[in-house]
């Protein structure tokens, strides 16, 4: 167990270093950063000023290590656009995105788990096919489009929910639904296949031979074993959701990290972009790490290793 944990942590650390490098390299893609920052109407003199001011006149290697050194202690520099510390910007916006992600995951689990179980218990029957088909249809919907549709129907026509903004919990419902949609098919399929595998296992035959009730067989004996892959994929999906929140936050004008990323990209605010990329990567890595640990708790065989 400890050995596994150390190995995982080492890989996670390496991944972060890789992403760090990647995030830095990303911003140098355009060639000359100073030109991009100064904007299209800048003169050659303006560009020189920008170059000096942002330290872009130093050698790239020096800039890189400077950035890495500061990033390691959580200092991502000053935002070009907001004139604030990037770390503060992110910390301020993170709760919104986290709430959105958790609401999305919650809705996704609430829908996907029962559907997956029902599908598995009716494997091959009409209801199973119908559920798969609906999931497939859901998967085909572009999230931003679904967001707009919900705005028109739930927001405008029915007036049930606010159309955009961050004020209250109601503002998270529509974006949460949209975000959930992207995760439901994967979660549902995995629940289904996990439950099918579990229901065909020998220990389920034993449970039936013991005369246990159907509820106990399905919910206690099968679900516990089917849960492990679902936990992993749920963590991965939450990571993807946080990444995908950029589209949804933009559509619903939710002022979270996604919206911040979107604004900083359109404003050429590179320190912020870099920091958000890195932060999302770290969160994703931590989530998968957490899922592994949770699985170890669920599976006594892993726990013992």
């Amino acid at each position, binding site marked *: 167990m400890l050995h596994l944990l150390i190995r995982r942590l080492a890989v996670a650390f390496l991944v972060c270093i890789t992403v760090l490098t990647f995030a830095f390299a990303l911003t140098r893609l355009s060639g000359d950063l100073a030109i991009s920052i100064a904007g299209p109407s800048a003169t050659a003199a303006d560009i020189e000023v920008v170059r000096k001011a942002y330290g872009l006149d130093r050698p790239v290697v020096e800039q890189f290590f400077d950035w890495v050194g500061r990033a390691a202690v959580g200092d991502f520099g000053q935002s070009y656009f907001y004139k604030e510390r990037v770390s503060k910007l992110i910390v301020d916006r993170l709760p919104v995105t986290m709430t959105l992600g958790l609401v999305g995951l919650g809705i996704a689990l609430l829908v996907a788990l029962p559907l997956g179980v029902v599908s598995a218990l009716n494997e091959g029957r009409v209801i199973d096919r119908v559920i798969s088909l609906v999931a497939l249809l859901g998967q085909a919907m572009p999230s931003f489009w679904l967001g707009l549709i919900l705005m028109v129907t739930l927001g405008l026509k029915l007036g049930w929910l606010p159309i955009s903004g961050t004020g209250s919990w109601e503002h998270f419902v529509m974006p949460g639904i949209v975000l959930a949609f992207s995760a439901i098919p994967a979660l549902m399929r995995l629940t289904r296949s996990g439950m099918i595998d579990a229901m065909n*296992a*020998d*220990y389920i*035959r*034993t*449970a*039936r*031979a*013991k*005369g*246990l*009730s*159907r509820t*106990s067989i399905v919910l206690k*004996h099968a679900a*516990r*074993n089917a849960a492990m892959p679902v936990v992993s994929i749920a963590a991965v999906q939450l990571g993807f959701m946080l990444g995908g929140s950029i589209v949804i936050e933009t559509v619903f004008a939710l002022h979270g990290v996604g919206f911040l990323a979107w604004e900083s990209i359109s404003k050429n605010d590179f320190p912020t972009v870099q920091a958000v990329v890195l932060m999302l990567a770290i969160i994703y890595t931590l989530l998968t790490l957490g899922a592994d640990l949770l699985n170890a708790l*669920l*599976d*006594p*065989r892993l726990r*013992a290793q």
Partner: protein
Amino acid sequence: MTALLEVADLHIGFGGLAAVRGASFTVNKGETHCLVGESGCGKSVTALAMMGLLPANAERRTAALRFDGQDIAGLSEREMSRLRGDRIAMIFQEPMTSLNPAYTVGSQMGEVYRRHRGGTRQAALDRAAELLERVRITSPGMRLGQFPHQLSGGLRQRVMIAMALMCEPELLIADEPTTALDVTVQAQILRLLADLQTELGLAILMITHDLGIVARTAHRVSVMYAGEIVETAPVFPLFAEPRHPYTRGLLSCVPVPGKVGRDEPLGSIRGTVPRIGPNFAGCAFRDRCDLARPDCSSPVVRHTLASEHSYLCQIAP
């Protein structure tokens, strides 16, 4: 001798293929009845049919299926689940996978008891500890808190047996309970089952492909081939005067000290168990039989020797 489990004319099919064809047998109270045959003969399916645990794609048809005088063929799933684990228990061939890896031994044993007898968790655990002791597991208290993967195969099978006995069943169906175990462990488990039988007056339907196990445990034997009971007899007559060529073939495959000399070759049965399609007629063993005759492809008659010994073959006694 009162009959506990009576099966008459049991048929089980999977799609067009017949797995069991008209099997009839009786398990008496307090007796061990061995069902013996090669792999694929339909033994496990027969056992599952007794428990109402056949897979969804199986079709079952039977003239009578009685447990303790009660017809159980027509019981609903819910009524059947009241019998299972309580009055009829079953243990399986694969001790490695038959226990749920996610729960402790104590939790899995306790839940049968609470399902059928109710009571507190602690009462169930006490009962479980008592049974672990009965199946000769040392320090039962510790074992109750362990997970299946922490136990050896032999221990797990003991746990399975203990779990099956939680509610003092009258009938225990054991589907090749020792096949997956080492020879020494095998012997221990068989002795344990025999002891438990005398202690508790248990009836056992023992399924095996091993005639050595039959010789050690059985009171009665039914030899199964391609879904049919081709010969049934008390254990002594069966070993002394096997009548069906398949039974003889099986017996010639095992060395019997004193009967088979050191350098004599053991027998074997050529070929494999055939699949039985919808329009099959005659003896299923004829292609592998040295004594096959032309009339083997017409319907076979059952010959009765003594009141307890009958076999299914064209060759008259």
